[in-house]
């Protein structure tokens, strides 16, 4: 049995002190559990949820396949410092042409850490640069959908941090239309769970028939955050948990390529002042939402998010099917499993955070452009991971009423 672990009341504060000691800025709030990976080149990384790095040599077996350099623009170097954290600047088939952040200091630092000397004051300015073929958007979630549309309308490929849309089904669907109207351009959402080793194994085994029909699946994003995490214009503060569902919904949608068709979601009111009676920008009373989905193949999926319950942080999932189950490992009737190793990434590209997924997502996006094929998490998968959470929150606000979920294919 695992040892019990005490989470002391001032652990948020200690993480904060550790981080500010590293010069990461005094404006950051408590980061005791924090799912993104601030760039800390020379600093020792604090123990932060989702921060764990992959130990293997991820480039083993990699073979160069093209001389092309995709000309990339990177946008957004806020709290998560994601623009530099996916390793675009390390990829042999990428040239980072320009970078941007609305804050000049962040913009300058992003340029420095990616070795790029061209900066723009905004995404709008960056998009006018005809030299740029592809843009990575690591901006605030509420801007994702609109900004992706802007990128595509300027004839550029786009990769975006999660989720695809934040609380707005309409914006997600508008984005879908724009993607469809630009068939030559790639859209990819960087859902990190999709390149975690366990999800990758589940997907591979599923496609090889090792699970049969998935009867039940579950995904969870347990992410305690007493003080909250800083964010651009405070978009994270008291946001509905299920509006940020992709780390967990990926454990069904990313495995099977299937969809959720209906949802009943129960929220648990948080009793602190910021949540009571939904007295906040999102009129949201819940910091924990547990959703129960029916799936397109007649199965069930439980998807959970919680930020007000300390302990056992996780971005994880498991499933049970008619031929086998996955809970950390495969147990089932299939005796000859396919190759479960994730595809190699070029030497020098770090696998990165979130279970070694960052480098792999970036590589997948670049390869999809060079090979002109569908990226792993395309717009359909992105919407099928994101929109069910939006409907789930609607259900929670109606006391768990069953609601239908729009289907995308």
């Amino acid at each position, binding site marked *: *049995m*695992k*040892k*019990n*672990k*005490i*989470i*002391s*009341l001032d652990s948020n504060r200690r993480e904060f002190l550790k981080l500010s000691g590293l010069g990461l800025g005094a404006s950051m709030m408590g980061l005791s559990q924090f799912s993104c990976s601030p760039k800390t080149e020379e600093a020792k990384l604090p123990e932060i949820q989702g921060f764990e790095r992959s130990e293997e040599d991820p480039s083993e077996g990699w073979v160069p396949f093209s001389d092309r350099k995709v000309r990339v623009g990177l946008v957004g170097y806020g709290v998560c410092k994601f623009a530099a954290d996916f390793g675009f600047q390390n990829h042999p088939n990428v040239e980072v042409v320009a970078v941007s952040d609305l804050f000049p200091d962040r913009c300058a630092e992003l340029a420095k850490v990616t070795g790029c000397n061209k900066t723009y004051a905004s995404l709008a300015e960056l998009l006018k640069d005809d030299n740029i073929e592809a843009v990575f958007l690591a901006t605030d979630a509420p801007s994702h959908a609109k900004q992706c549309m802007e990128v595509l309308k300027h004839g550029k490929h786009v990769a975006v941090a999660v989720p695809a849309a934040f609380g707005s089904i309409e914006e997600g669907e508008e984005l879908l239309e724009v993607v469809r109207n630009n068939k030559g351009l790639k859209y990819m959402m960087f859902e990190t769970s999709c390149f975690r080793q366990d999800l990758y194994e589940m997907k591979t085994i599923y496609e090889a028939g090792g699970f049969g029909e998935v*009867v*039940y699946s*579950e995904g969870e994003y*347990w992410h305690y955050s007493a003080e909250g995490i800083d964010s651009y214009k405070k978009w994270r503060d008291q946001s509905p948990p299920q509006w940020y569902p992709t780390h967990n919904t990926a454990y069904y949608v990313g495995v099977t390529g299937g969809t959720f068709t*209906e949802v*009943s979601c*129960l*929220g*648990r*009111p948080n*009793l602190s002042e910021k949540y*009571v*009676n*939904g007295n906040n920008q999102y009129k949201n*009373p819940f910091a*924990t939402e*547990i959703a*129960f989905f*029916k799936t397109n193949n*007649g*199965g*069930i999926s*439980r998807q*959970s998010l*919680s930020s*007000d*319950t*300390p*302990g*056992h942080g996780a971005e994880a999932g498991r499933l*049970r*099917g*008619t*031929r*086998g*189950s*996955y*809970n950390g490992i495969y*147990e*089932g*009737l299939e005796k000859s499993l396919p190759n479960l190793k994730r595809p190699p990434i070029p030497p020098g590209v770090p696998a990165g955070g979130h279970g070694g997924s960052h480098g792999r997502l970036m590589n997948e996006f670049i390869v999809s452009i060079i090979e002109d094929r569908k990226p792993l998490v395309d717009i359909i998968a992105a919407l099928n991971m994101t929109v069910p959470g939006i*409907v789930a929150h*609607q259900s929670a*606000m*109606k*006391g*768990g*009423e*069953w*609601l*239908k979920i729009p289907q995308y294919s």
Partner: protein
Amino acid sequence: MKSKEINELNKHVEEMKNGSTEKSIFSRRSFLSSVGVGAATVSLWPLGCAPKASRGSQVIAGFDDTIDESALSQGWLPVSDRKIKVGIVGYGASKFGASFGFQNHPNVTIEAVSDLFPDRCEELARVTGCSKTYPSLEELVKDDNIEAVFVATDAPSHPRHCIEVLKHGKHVAVAVPVTYGSVEEGERLLEEVKRNPGLKFMMLETSCFRQNLFEMRAIYKAGGFGSIVYSEGEYYHGAPLQVPPGGYQGVGSYKNWRQGGPPMWYPTHNTAYHIGVTDGSFIEVSCFGTKREDGSSANQYNNPFDTEVALFRTSEGGTSRQARSSATPGRASEIGRVRGTLGSYQDGYEGRMEELPNLKRPPLPPGVPAGGHGGSHGYLMNDFILSILEDRKPLVDIIAAMNMTIPGIIAHQSAMRDGELLKIPQYS
């Protein structure tokens, strides 16, 4: 959690419900009849009990998870010289009549045993070292010498048998569940228990004395979780990964009561991971079932499902996911976890409580084996005997038993109505 706080929470839930006046663009799921017609019944893979090894070499869930028996009696002190005269009934597929160690307890004399099948009855007498047998429970309960009866019979007979025992002025311990698919029979038993305040009723829910649940309960009572926001329990009885020669035949049961049983009618191993931790209850449920692979519901229960997963609203305003599956090969488990406002328990506690309470289960009398189901059997039996000796409430009394069992029955109703949100009767 204080009741005032619970009321606050429930009030908030109601307010939020009522406050959302905007009309949903999505329609409510219409009621779908899911009762089909099919051919053969499907044999059940799972077995919630621990058959003797001689029954075959199949690895069966709940069987292998015994614990190191040494040092279990450390710190044990006798509380009484009294010998309670116990009758044991039922030595069927699970052979539970003998596997809870009544015959090993220093405060117990096995007065008589019974099984409807003479050969089983004889074997039960032999393995418990008892010389008196009766051909039925109805005959056994007439024995005025007997003070307490352990009912290890077929689940559908549990409430009827327990009522019979109580009516004869005897304490009763019963295997799970307290009632099988019938809310009415459970409530009739509840009435009978209430009519006999001097008699103990205990349901021997094994999860309640698993080490992890025992720890959760102790930490919860000491305040280390605060209010439970989310809990989950699961009882997966996967099909064996190696199908035996001739095919897996399922588990035998008296008059085949197990054949085709709705998964949520046998929910206590998992619901214990909320009810047994908090002593709370489930108030509403939405449950969804997945159909058997052959699509058949032609069984004695007209039950089309072999997996059922339920989402419950709890009495403290949280949510609980409870899952039962017998159709999915893979890891078998009877386990659960909780998340609260002050801490969580998965495979250990993580949270804000700095000094945890004593997490060791109370000592067993020397010679009493902890037994199967996570070493719970001996502890359950011992708690039942102590509750009689000390005239106190047993760990799993009728209220806890009902609160672990009835929500599963309602959950199956919900599954049959395609997940409709249903209210659950409350007992206290």
